[in-house]
Every structure is written in structure tokens, then in C-alpha cells.
């Protein structure tokens, strides 16, 4: 049995194909999300990699903000459940998952059986999300992918507001104008995201092990700041950005096997 999960986010599209509910056979990722050709490209890409067609897939589950618009889905599930399933697959026994995506952040608490028990999500502001980092990257003229490296050079991280993206933007500008080193500002920006999301996590009954998922998980500076803020190790896996798609494929397999 082959099941496919497609996770259509605000800035990326991801697919994963699972065989018999156990092994992932192929994954794909495109850097464009809802409303672009990214989802279709990711979908075709993963099928091409496996050398199969849509007919060979027993069940497709769509997740992410674009899930409702994906016509070719047999099932739909929220990205909350899917990230949780993907996280537990990679880290068995996982109890807390922190996902920072393009436009939202969520913290999921997972019960001992691997099911989502509770979750909290960010409010309407982009602070604490991938979008916040993108805005700062443009302002600082430094790609987000280089943030971790730059932040590692920081000697004294700047203090950047975490309550509002616009406030934070003007703080960054005044810090730079006052002569702060770029790496200190970058480190401050990463901390700002970490404390914002960390305080969401503290609202829940946070248990270890804790892992991060979503695109921002690749940023080691945010991960370290989060770990420092929460005083717990924060696990990371290279597939962090794919947890949603993987979880959707697992969800589809579970539903299929119940039939």
C-alpha cells in the first residue's frame, strides 16, 4: 500500500510517500506554497522520483493551509495532527512538538500513546513565525539560511521586541543606526522568535522529549535560543520541514488500514 501526504503551506509545498504505513519511499519539497504551482510540482516530483503515477497511490491526504483547495485529496487533516504524527514517527516517545512555519507557530503536546492531546498557536501577529525572520532578513540584507552562522559570531545579542513585527522592525533599524553589530542583531532576532514561541510552549504542560519541526527548525540559532529559554534539549532532524507531509501520509495509512 502506498499513501501520499501533501503539505501545502504558505511558502512551501512538501510531499512524502509511505509504503505500508512503515517506510518512506520518497519525499519532495518546493519553495512556493498556496496559490502557486509549487504544490503541483512537489506532487509530480515525488511521483516521478518513485516512477509511479497517481493511480498507484492508495490514498492521498492533504494538510496545511492549502489543504482545502487541493482537489485531488482523498482525505484532509490539520497540520497539527500531521506534524504530531510525523514527529512521533521520527522521534518515538516524543511528548512536545514545536512547529514554526511560514506564517504560524504552534506547540503541540502529545500523550503517551502518540496522539495530540492539546495545542496552542500564535495569535494574529507574525512575530514568532517564519515570516518574521523573512522580514528581518530583508532588512538586514542577510539570507535566513545564514542567520545561524552569523548569530554564532555574536558576543552580545541585541534585545529585540517579540510582541510585534513592526515594532521589531523599527528596533532593528535603530539598533543598526546606533552601531550594533549585524551578528548581534541577528542573534537578537533569533532569540525574539524563540522566546515568543517558547512562551507558547510554557502555557502547555510541556514534557520532554521536545522537538522542533517546520522550516525555521533548520535555523540552529533559533533552536539553541529555544532550548536555552525552555531549559530543555530541543531535538532536531534533517526532515523537520517534512514532518507535516510525512504525518499526512501516516494519517492516510492509518485510515486505510482501518477500512
Amino acid at each position, binding site marked *: 500500500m502506498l499513501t501520499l501526504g501533501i503539505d501545502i503551506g504558505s511558502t512551501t509545498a512538501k510531499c512524502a510517500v509511505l509504503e505500508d504505513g512503515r517506510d518512506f519511499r520518497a519525499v519532495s519539497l518546493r519553495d512556493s506554497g498556496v496559490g502557486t504551482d509549487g504544490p503541483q510540482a512537489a506532487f509530480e516530483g515525488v511521483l516521478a522520483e518513485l516512477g509511479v503515477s497517481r493511480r498507484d497511490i492508495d490514498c492521498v491526504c492533504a494538510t496545511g493551509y492549502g489543504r482545502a483547495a487541493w482537489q485531488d485529496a482523498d482525505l484532509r*487533516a*490539520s*497540520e*497539527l495532527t500531521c506534524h504530531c504524527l510525523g514527529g512521533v514517527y521520527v522521534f518515538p516517545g516524543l511528548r512536545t512538538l514545536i512547529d514554526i512555519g511560514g506564517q504560524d507557530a504552534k506547540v503541540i503536546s502529545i500523550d503517551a500513546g502518540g*496522539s*495530540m*492531546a*492539546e495545542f496552542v498557536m500564535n495569535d*494574529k501577529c507574525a512575530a514568532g513565525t517564519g515570516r518574521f525572520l523573512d522580514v528581518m532578513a530583508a532588512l538586514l540584507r542577510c539570507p535566513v539560511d545564514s542567520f545561524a552562522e552569523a548569530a554564532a559570531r555574536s558576543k552580545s545579542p541585541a534585545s529585540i521586541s517579540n510582541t510585534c513585527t513592526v515594532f521589531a522592525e523599527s528596533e532593528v533599524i535603530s539598533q543598526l543606526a546606533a552601531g550594533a553589530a549585524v551578528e548581534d542583531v541577528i542573534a537578537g532576532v533569533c532569540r525574539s522568535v524563540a522566546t515568543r514561541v517558547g512562551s507558547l510552549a510554557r502555557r502547555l504542560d510541556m514534557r520532554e522529549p521536545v522537538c522542533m519541526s517546520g522550516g525555521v527548525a533548520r535555523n540552529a540559532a533559533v533552536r539553541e535560543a529555544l532550548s536555552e529559554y525552555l531549559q530543555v534539549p530541543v531535538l532536531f532532524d534533517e526532515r523537520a520541514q517534512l514532518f507535516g507531509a510525512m504525518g499526512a501520509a501516516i494519517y492516510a495509512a492509518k485510515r486505510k488500514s482501518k477500512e
Partner: protein
Amino acid sequence: MEVRKGSSQDPNSAKYKLNQIAAKAYSDAQAAKERGEKVGWCASNFPVELPETLGIPVCYPENQAAGIAARGQGEKLCSIAEDEGYSNDICAYARISLAYAKIKDEPAQNMPMPDFMLCCNNICSCMTKWYENLSKELDIPLIMIDIPFNPDNEVSRDEIEYVKAQFLEAVRQLEEITGKKWSDERFREVMANSCRTSRAWLEATALAAARPSPFNGFDLLNHMAVMVTARGKPEAAEAMELLAREYRENIENGTSTFRAEEKYRIMFEGIACWPWLRVTSTGLKSRGINMVSTIYADAFGFIYDDFDGMIEAYCKVPNAINLETARDKRVRLCNNIGVDGLLVHTNRSCKLWSGFMPEMSRQIGEACGIPVVSFDGDQADPRNFSEAQYDTRVQGLTEIMASRKAGE
């Protein structure tokens, strides 16, 4: 066209009657104004029994603002208030009302301009300032009753005396403004009507304990208008009793105004998201979620036996009580009615309700063993809501409830 029994078009249905009463509250006030009578604007937690006993017509700005927002004009009026210099952080009901006082015409819900204002600070401090501003700008008297926030569990004798003196003074002021006279006998009638209406309302809302619930909880949000504006009138009491009867009949016949399979039952916390009412209700109904309980139902059920009892009731309105008492009321509702989850509207307008909600809802979730999920929104400003965010949160809640049920 055939009219479905019990629908809003069936003139014998409670729904039709309640809608008529709510609409009549506005037209009666308008007619009184045209006759040259003095008309007031009144806060929802002000003792409506006072103007009702005196036969003074009043309108309710909160109710008007909700109507305007539900009919899609919230953003327009909020923007007018913001153009005047009011911050968009202020409650959207206040912004809409302040804007209405400026433009004096909004076909979505018109009401006569006031000759005096009636306010009571057992609601929130934003309302105090909103009414003060209106009184100043329109140059009309304001009657303000101070009912302090109650950190204790009971209402003390001292508090009752303190508030009673103000109620009596308010009656005196109202007599002076309108030339009408207080009658104890008339007060007893109003009190009896108000209690009768409240009893029927509480009975009707408690029937949600049946499975499936005989009604869709969103019905309550509409019918509440009558509880706010007309609970002292005999026709309101009759219509509410009819509503309770209809719900009992639904239980007997196994029917419901919730027209979907009731897979899950939740409590909804906070004021409705009026500009997005259809989106928020469809998001629930399409997943088989019935909102069977809301503290709103309780909030306007005033039951008492005499003048002092009435004062005590107003000292215990949900906005003026401590967190523990407020929590216990909700826990009781959740347990009596039986719910699988709690959906919290983090209402950007209302700092009071939303401010203590993260902690209170956490405690409710713990006490009742149910998942708690919140979403950002606004009771009347459509700009503070994202449909996609709402949908994801509700779907997440559904998935938790489903997996808990499967595990049972």
C-alpha cells in the same frame, strides 16, 4: 411556499415571536421618540427594571452594534470612529456606537438618538468612558451606577446598601428627566415578568443536556437579544416559555434545530464573532460540532424576589465576579450539559473577557478533562479574524475530540 413549523417564518413559533419582540424594542423606542417622549441609551447590565417600571423607552447600544456588525457594517462604522481619533484597540461595540452617534443613520440598525445615558460599570471600564464621551458630545445627562468588581464569593450587605442608594438615586434622576413616576406595584409586575422570562430562558438553555441537544447553540445568540432588551415584558416571558416548550417537544420527537448529526458538543466561550457568524457556525456544523453551551446563556438569567435581590443579581453579573467564581459557573455548565471540548474566542475587542481567559480556560479544561482551543477574532470588527486560522484550530480540536472518543 410552505412554512416549516417552528421556523422564523412560522408566526406561531418562538423564533418568530422572539424576533418580533427584538425588532419591536427598536420600533417602540422610535415611536416614543416621535411622540416627544424622552428616550435613553442603556448598558446591557444596567438594571433594566428601573426604566421598565417607569415606562421609559430605552435602546441598547451593544445590541445595536452587534446587529450592525452581523449585517456587515462593522468595519465601516469602526473606521468612522477611528477617523475621529479613537484607537482601534478600543472595543468595537464602543467604536460602532461612537460612530453612530456621529452619523446618526445606519440602515443596518437604526435607533433613536438618546436624551440621557444609563450606564453601570459592572461590565467593563471601556464602557464607562464610552458612555461618558457620548454624554459629553451629545450634551445629555449620564446616570452612572458604580457596582464594584467583586473579589469575594458572596455579595455583602454593605455592597447591597451601597448600590441600593445609587439605584434609588437613579430612579429619582429618571423621574426628574422624564417626568414619569415610580410605582412599587408596577415594579413588582416587572420583576415578576423578568423572573418568569429568566426562568424560562434558563430552562430552555439547560435542555441542551439532552443528547442530541434539541437546539443549535447559535440560536441562543439570537434569542439573547430579547433577554437583554425586553426581559421585563410579559410577551418576552410568554415567548421564552414557548421556546422551552418547543425544545422539550424536540427532545420528545428526537428532533433539533441543529440540522446535522451531533457528533461533538462544545462550550463556546466569549461573545460571538458577529461579522463572521456564518463562517464560525458553518466551521462547526460541517464537522458535526454543536455549540451546546455558553456562559452567555447564564449571563442574562436574572432571578430574584425583591428589590435587594435584584441588586444582588446585578452585583453578580459574569463580568464583575472573580476568576474562581466565573470558572466554577462554567465548569458547572460544562458538567451539567456534557461537552467534549471548549472553544475560546480570544476577542480582540474585549480586554475584559479575553484578558483572564487563558488562565480561566486552562483551569476549566483541567477541571472538566476536556481539550481547550482558542482562536483570534473580534465581536464586531471583521478585520481581526482569519478564516484559515479559525478553520485549522477547529479542525485540530475536532481531531483531538475524535481521537479521545475513539480511545474511549
